[in-house]
C-alpha cells in the first residue's frame, strides 16, 4: 500500500489488500462518483479559480491586470504572512501535543478499565465537541473577562489578580485553551475506539511475560493505534494551520492583541474581506495550502517510519 493516507497506512489496523478487492475495474467509480462530483464542485473548482485569480491583480483604481507570478513573489517576501506563519507554528508545536497528549492519556485511562464511572467520563469529556466553535468562543470570551467574567469572579473571590487572558502575551495560549477544550474529547474518542479493537490476546501474552502496565502501553497499545495517532495528528495540524473562528471572534474582545494578520487564515480573510485584495488573498491561501500539505506529509512519513 503506497497511498499516502490509505487505511493501510493510517487506520487503526492495516487491512491486507487481498481478495476483498474483486477486480480492477471502473465499478468503484460508480460509488465514489457522487462524492467526487460534489467534492470537485465545492473544493476543486474554487481552488482552480483561486489559482487563476492568483495570477491577476484587481485594483480599486485601474482595474484588473495579469501579473504572472508577482503575487507569489510578494507573498514570499511578506513579513506579515511569515510572522503569522511563525505564530501559528508556535501554536501548533505546543497546542497539538498538549491536546493529543491529554486525549491519549484519557483514552488510556478509559481503556485500562480502572476508572469508576467510565461511561460517564467518556460521554462528558466528549460533550464540548458538540458545542459550535462560535458558541464556544463567545462563551470562553465571556469567561475570560477580568472584570465581569469568570476570571474576574475568581479574582474577586480569592483576592488574587490573575493576568488578563486576553492580553497580547497570553491571548495565543487562551486561544489554544479554547481549541483544546473543543477537541480533546473528539481525539480521545478516536484513540479510545482504536484502543478497543487491539486484540486482547496480545495483552495476555504480555502479562504472561510479566510486563507491567506501562510496558503494555508502550510496547503494545501505542504501536497498535499508531494509525489513529497519525491521522489525528494530521487533522490537528490542518486544523491548527486553518485557525480562524477563534481569533476572529475574540478580536473584538482583544483588538490590540489579535491583529488582522494574527493567523495566516485570518490574514487571508482580512485581505479579502476588509481589503478587497481577492487576488493576493488567493495567493496566500495557495501558499499556505502547499505548506500545510508538506507538513502533513512529513508527519505521515515520520509516523510510518517510527512504527515501521
Amino acid at each position, binding site marked *: 500500500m503506497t497511498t499516502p493516507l490509505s487505511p493501510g497506512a493510517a487506520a487503526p489496523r492495516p487491512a491486507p489488500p487481498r481478495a476483498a478487492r474483486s477486480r480492477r475495474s471502473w465499478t468503484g467509480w460508480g460509488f465514489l462518483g457522487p462524492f467526487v462530483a460534489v467534492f470537485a464542485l465545492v473544493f476543486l473548482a474554487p481552488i482552480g479559480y483561486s489559482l487563476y485569480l492568483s495570477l491577476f491583480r484587481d*485594483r*480599486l*483604481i*485601474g482595474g484588473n491586470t495579469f501579473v504572472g507570478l508577482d503575487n507569489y513573489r510578494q507573498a514570499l517576501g511578506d513579513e506579515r504572512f511569515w510572522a503569522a506563519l511563525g505564530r501559528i507554528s508556535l501554536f501548533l508545536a505546543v497546542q497539538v501535543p498538549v491536546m493529543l497528549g491529554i486525549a491519549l492519556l484519557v483514552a488510556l485511562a478509559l481503556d485500562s478499565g480502572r476508572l469508576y464511572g467510565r461511561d460517564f467520563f467518556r460521554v462528558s469529556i466528549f460533550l464540548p465537541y458538540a458545542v459550535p466553535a462560535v458558541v464556544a468562543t463567545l462563551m470562553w470570551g*465571556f469567561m475570560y*473577562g477580568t*472584570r*465581569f*467574567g469568570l476570571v474576574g469572579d475568581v479574582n474577586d473571590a480569592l483576592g488574587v489578580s490573575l493576568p*488578563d487572558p486576553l*492580553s*497580547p502575551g497570553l491571548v495565543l495560549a487562551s486561544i489554544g485553551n479554547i481549541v483544546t477544550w473543543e477537541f480533546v474529547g473528539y481525539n480521545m474518542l478516536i484513540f479510545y475506539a482504536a484502543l478497543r479493537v487491539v486484540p486482547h490476546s496480545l495483552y495476555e501474552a504480555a502479562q504472561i511475560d510479566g510486563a507491567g502496565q506501562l510496558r503494555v502501553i508502550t510496547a503494545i497499545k501505542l504501536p497498535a493505534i499508531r494509525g489513529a495517532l497519525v491521522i489525528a495528528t494530521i487533522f490537528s495540524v490542518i486544523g491548527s494551520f486553518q485557525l480562524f473562528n477563534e481569533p*476572529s*471572534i475574540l*478580536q*473584538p*474582545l*482583544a*483588538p*490590540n*492583541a489579535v*491583529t*488582522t*494578520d494574527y493567523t495566516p487564515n485570518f490574514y487571508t480573510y*482580512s485581505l479579502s*474581506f*476588509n*481589503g*478587497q*485584495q481577492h487576488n493576493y488573498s488567493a495567493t496566500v491561501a495557495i501558499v499556505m495550502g502547499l505548506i500545510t500539505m508538506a507538513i502533513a506529509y512529513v508527519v505521515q512519513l515520520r509516523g510510518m517510519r517510527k512504527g515501521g
Partner: protein
Amino acid sequence: MPKHSRRLLRGIGLVCALALGVTACGDESGGSGQKSVSQDDIRAALEKGGTLTVWAWEPTLKQVAADFEKKHPGVEVELVNAGTNNDQYTALQNAISAKKGVPDVAQIEYYAMGQYALTKQLTDLEDFGAGKLSAKFSPGPWQGVQAGTNRVHALPMDSGPMALFYNKKVFDKYGIETPTTWAEYLDAARDLHKADPKAYITADTGDAGVTTSLLWQAGSRPYTVNGTKVGIDFSDEGAKTYTDTWQKLIDEKLLAPVNPWTDDWYKALGDGTIATLATGAWMPANLVSGVKEAAGDWRVAPLPQWSADGRSSAENGGSALALPELGKNEALAYAFVEYASAGDGVATRLENGAFPATTADLQSTAFQDTAFDYFGGQKANKIFAESAANVADDWSYLPYQVYANSIFNDTVGKAYVSGTTLAEGLKSWQQASVDYGNKQGFTVAK
C-alpha cells in the same frame, strides 16, 4: 465576525449648495448625468408598485418600511439586515462582484461612502433631483453623501455630532466638575482614578472612529483626497495636540481597558467604572436599552475643547441610504429613500430614537425641548444641535477608510498595550495606509 467598532461619519462641510443655491452643484458637474427621472416617473412607479430590497441594519427603519407599505399599497419593502457595517459592506461588495443579488437600497456609513462613490457603484441621485434637497440636510452629512465628488451618491439618514456623556452620580460623589476642556478632562481623569482606583474617566482600547473624530475636532486634517490622488499625514499641529493629551491618559493608565460594545463595556457603563463617553448623538438609544440600571445617572455636556475659548466639534458615526448601481426599481427605490431620509419617515425614526440629519428637525423647538428621562429630564438635543452647528467643515476620509480602519488596531493599537507611543502608532498606520493605497492604484503621497 463583525467589527464592533463604531464607524464614522464621512465628510463635513458647508457645501456649495448652501452658498450658491439649491441645484448649483449638480447642474455644473455634468458628466454622468445620462438619465433623468422626473417626479412623475417616481409617482408612476409608486402607483405601479413592486418589491424593493433594502439592506440596512438601522433598527428604526422597520417602522418606516411598514408605514411606506401602508401608504403605497402596491409596494412591498423587503428590509434585510445583511450584517452590521463591515459585514454588510463585504456582502455588498461580493454581490456587486457577482453582479447578482445586489439590493435596490443599501445603508452606507459616511466614512465608507468614498469607496463606492469613487468606483462608480452607486446610482447618481442628482438624476432624481436630489440636488434640490441639499438645503434640507445639515452640511456635514450632506458633504458625506457627496464623498469628495460633486455629485449626490446617497441621502443622509442620520448623523452623529459629538458630545460628552458623563455619569453625574460618579462625578458628584467625588466632587468632580464637568470638564470643558481636554486639559480639565485630564485632571478629572486623575482625580477620579485617585479617588476610586476602580473608576476610569473613559474606556479606550484604540478605536479608529473615535480617534479620527477627535483628530477632526483638534483641527488635524490627515487625509487629503483629490480624485485618485490621496495624501496622508499625521504630523500636523492638530494631531500633536491630540496625541499629547491622549498619551498622558495612556501613560498614567487612566483609561479603562474595556473594549467598546462588549458585554463588559455595557456593564462598566452601568456600574460607574466608566465615567464619561465622548461620542455621537445617536448614543442615547443605546444607553436606554443597554444600560438600564444607570437610568437617571447620566447627563450630556458639550464636547471638551482643545483650547479654553474653542468652539469646535466633530461628527462620529452616521449613515445614509444609497442606490447601488446594479440594483433594480430605481424610481421606486428613490421614492423610499426620500421618504425615509427627508419625508415622513424622519419623524417616525426620531420617535424611535434616531438622531436626524435634517436641519429643520435639528432646529425645531419640539426637538430641542424634548426632555430625556434617561438624563434626568435634561434637554440634551439642544447640546447635540449646537454641536452639529460647530462641526468643522473641511474634514475628509480616505476613499478606502474601511480598510484603513480595519488595520487601526494592528498599528495604533500597539500604543495601548506596549511601549510604542501614540505618535509612532499613527505613523505606522500612515505607512500601512499609504502602501495599501498605492497597491490599489491610488497615487498616495505622505
